[in-house]
């Protein structure tokens, strides 16, 4: 049986992992390459880096860190943030990443999803969406609006419509990033995650808000998510405690959720 995936997600700034609360107030945790290796050794299923220097400050993607991580981490590794065109995608893939995550730039130029899928295959195109709960209107019937640029700009686009469009353009996975839940450690936004997973057939990644293993179990049992992003609960010193991957997997296994078994060393 195909198992549910745990993705460790890091925001990276100048080669350091940094952590934000609702997309603001970043503080540094440690070297991106070292943290990626540590989490790999702890048997995470997948790793995702957002290069926030490249996206926010319009600098080139930190390919050196991508290369270092790719040499040391042997699970799927994805990179997002600051990817502008097909050449950027090619550079990131050649540096050793498996997948590319695109977000704001896909909103500005949706055809890039189709172009990337055609050039490199849908399997390496993650469409990441920043979603915020809003009042339901004629224009936003799902009650969730798409934001871009680190949740600073609202687009007036309906989240469910954008998800369906992303799928039809060739995205291989959709990452549903809740602006309301990000950094709160109170759990994922199950409503929008379920809504989207019920209406598209590509894999859905729940993102934003995980603080303990029960939140992950909720994402897997109450929505159709195939994967869940965790970050703070793995490594943030601001939380009362962190959780090793083995403990999270034991928790999920005890609740009948299929996961890749933790290998005893």
């Amino acid at each position, binding site marked *: 049986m195909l*198992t549910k995936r745990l993705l460790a997600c890091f925001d990276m700034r100048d080669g350091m992992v940094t952590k934000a609360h609702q997309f603001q107030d970043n503080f540094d945790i440690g070297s991106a390459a070292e943290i990626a290796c540590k989490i790999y050794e702890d048997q995470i*299923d997948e790793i995702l880096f957002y290069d926030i220097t490249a996206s926010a400050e319009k600098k080139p993607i930190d390919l050196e860190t991508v290369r270092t991580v790719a040499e040391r981490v*042997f699970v*799927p590794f994805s990179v997002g943030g600051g990817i502008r065109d097909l050449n950027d995608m090619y550079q990131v893939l*050649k*540096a050793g990443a*498996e997948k590319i995550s695109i977000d704001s730039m896909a909103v500005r130029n949706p055809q890039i999803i189709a172009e990337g899928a055609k050039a490199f295959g849908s399997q390496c195109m993650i469409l990441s969406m920043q979603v915020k709960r809003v009042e339901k209107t004629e224009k936003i019937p799902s009650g969730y609006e798409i934001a871009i640029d680190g949740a600073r700009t609202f687009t007036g686009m309906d989240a469910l419509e954008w998800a369906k469009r992303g799928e039809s353009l060739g995205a291989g996975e959709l990452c549903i990033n809740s602006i309301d839940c990000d950094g709160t450690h109170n759990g994922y936004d199950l409503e929008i995650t379920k809504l989207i997973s019920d209406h598209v*057939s590509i*894999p859905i990644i729940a993102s934003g808000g995980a603080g303990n293993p029960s939140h992950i179990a909720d994402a897997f049992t109450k929505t159709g998510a195939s994967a869940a992003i965790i970050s703070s609960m793995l490594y943030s010193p601001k939380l009362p405690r962190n959780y090793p991957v083995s403990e999270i997997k034991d928790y999920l296994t005890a609740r009948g959720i299929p996961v890749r078994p933790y290998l005893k060393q």
Partner: protein
Amino acid sequence: MIGVIDYKAGNAPSVYNALKRVGADGVMVRSGEDLDGVNGVILPGVGSAEATLSSLAETGILSVLTPKVREDGLPFLGICIGMQILFEHSEEGDVDCLGWLKGQVVRFPSDRVRVPQMGWNEVVFRREHPILKGMGTSGHFYYVNSYHVVPEDAEDILAVTDYAGDFCCMVQRENILAAQFHLEKSGPLGLRLLENFARWAERGNDASC
């Protein structure tokens, strides 16, 4: 020395890095001449069957690779698309493939499962082979695939995985090995398979080792 075939759509760097990690000597293969002196060769693959086949033909790799594998017995490991193109025909793009192994490549039934299959699934080994040394009877490996092979000869099947029923995820016939999952991205178990392949290749694919 293990050659890793590098073409635009492939993920050769990941395979090369994984070989390095297990202490095997890897070399990137970008032309037919680069195959000189290798003890084994890995064909990684992402993307479509058609793109992979045309890329192999354009670079001139295929015309050198085919006799080395089929006549000289060079140990060969295909990964993902690198497995699918070994068979006779693929539903993906309705293309004829290499036909080194008998059988077809078909799509998962999307009315029963999410397609592509993306994530870790259990691989159950059906018989013994040096590449499976120390692996036990099963293990979880990372998949990204919409299509899978259906070998004509059941004896070619080395392992199966359940996704809308059991499908063949590893094959072996003489010096030709292939896996549908990405062993270069499957953590410690994938690295062990890769290490086993490198050892088997460097010993001249002697079945006893």
